[in-house]
């Protein structure tokens, strides 16, 4: 039961661990945030609209025809929370890319890590991370997010209404198999505009797949 105001905040959670994604999603939803989870830094950048060549594709359908569906709906991410240790792009790399981007640099970024390494923590904070959470993350940690979110809230942004646009064929079954398959399939689902871990009300209320 969240206040309408809180559910306006959309958090992008990045973690390569399926268990941790499930956890952070539940924690964030319990705190009344809208959540999208992805399993890598590169997918996070894709979702944020940033491509390798640093150009932002707003409404260009050329890259991935179905991708632009949610792009057109002006998906706004109010905060990125990311794991530090990930294969390929680390959370630190992701943080850097976000802070180096003119369009994304104002998005608050929070780092999570299972390891308490002081030099790692200070490096992240120096690079612009708002908070550094030690895993496992608790609900009480998430209460620290609000001030950062409130700072960035602007009155005139257009809020995406995913719920009102059942444009994607997104049967629960497809999502179920999705989770058990490789990351390639997950990428495919992302490109088709179906993000199984995206917040979207389903008839039976299940948004996560086991």
């Amino acid at each position, binding site marked *: 039961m969240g206040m309408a105001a809180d559910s306006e905040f959309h958090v992008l959670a990045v973690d390569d*661990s*399926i*268990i*941790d994604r*499930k*956890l952070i999603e*539940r*924690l964030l939803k*319990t705190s009344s945030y809208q959540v999208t989870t992805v399993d890598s830094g590169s997918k996070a950048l894709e979702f944020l609209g940033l491509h390798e060549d640093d150009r932002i594709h707003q409404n260009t359908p050329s890259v991935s025809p179905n991708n632009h569906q949610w792009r057109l709906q002006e998906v706004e991410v109010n905060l990125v929370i990311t794991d530090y*240790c990930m*294969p390929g792009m680390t959370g630190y790399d992701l943080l850097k890319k976000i802070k180096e981007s003119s369009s994304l640099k104002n998005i608050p970024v929070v780092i999570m890590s*299972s390891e308490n390494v002081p030099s790692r923590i200070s490096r992240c904070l120096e690079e612009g991370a708002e908070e550094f959470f030690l*895993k*496992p993350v*608790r*609900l009480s940690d998430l209460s620290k997010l609000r001030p950062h979110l409130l700072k960035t809230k602007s009155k005139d942004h257009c809020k995406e209404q995913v719920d009102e646009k059942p444009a994607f064929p997104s049967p629960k079954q497809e999502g179920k198999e999705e989770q*058990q398959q490789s990351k390639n399939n997950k990428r495919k689902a992302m490109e088709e505009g179906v993000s199984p871990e995206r917040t979207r009300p389903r008839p039976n*209320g299940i948004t*996560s797949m*086991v």
Partner: protein
Amino acid sequence: MDLVQLQRQLVEYRTSLYHEGFLDEQFTQLQELQDENNPDFVVEVVSLFFEDSERLLNELTKALEQQSIDFKRVDAHVHQLKGSSSSIGAQRVQKVCIAFRNYCEEQNVEGCLKCLQQVRHEYSLVKTKLESMFQLEQQILSAGGSIPM
């Protein structure tokens, strides 16, 4: 067994799991995240943990069977297992992972093999115990009762 007895049995069983170090405070956190709107949350997360752990244990076995062991790779898998066991509160599994990582750092094959055996054992124990606990919970729910906290 009647409902009250079942509920008592569950509480005792759960308490023993904490007492014996199989579960820690993080598991309690998971339970607190479960509610009427997400009644299967704990079972779902734990199921993910089971699947993921089995995958990792297989990877570890393969990696340690190699002629020339890639300790970085082994360590990466153990790191993942340590993380996920920590996330669900599977304390004994997590503890073995810590020792395991030390052996990886030392590139100690014997130590790694010993830890693999240990972690398999601890995993299998916690899996059995959690499954028993879930079964008890199901029995209580089927009998029309609610799960005591």
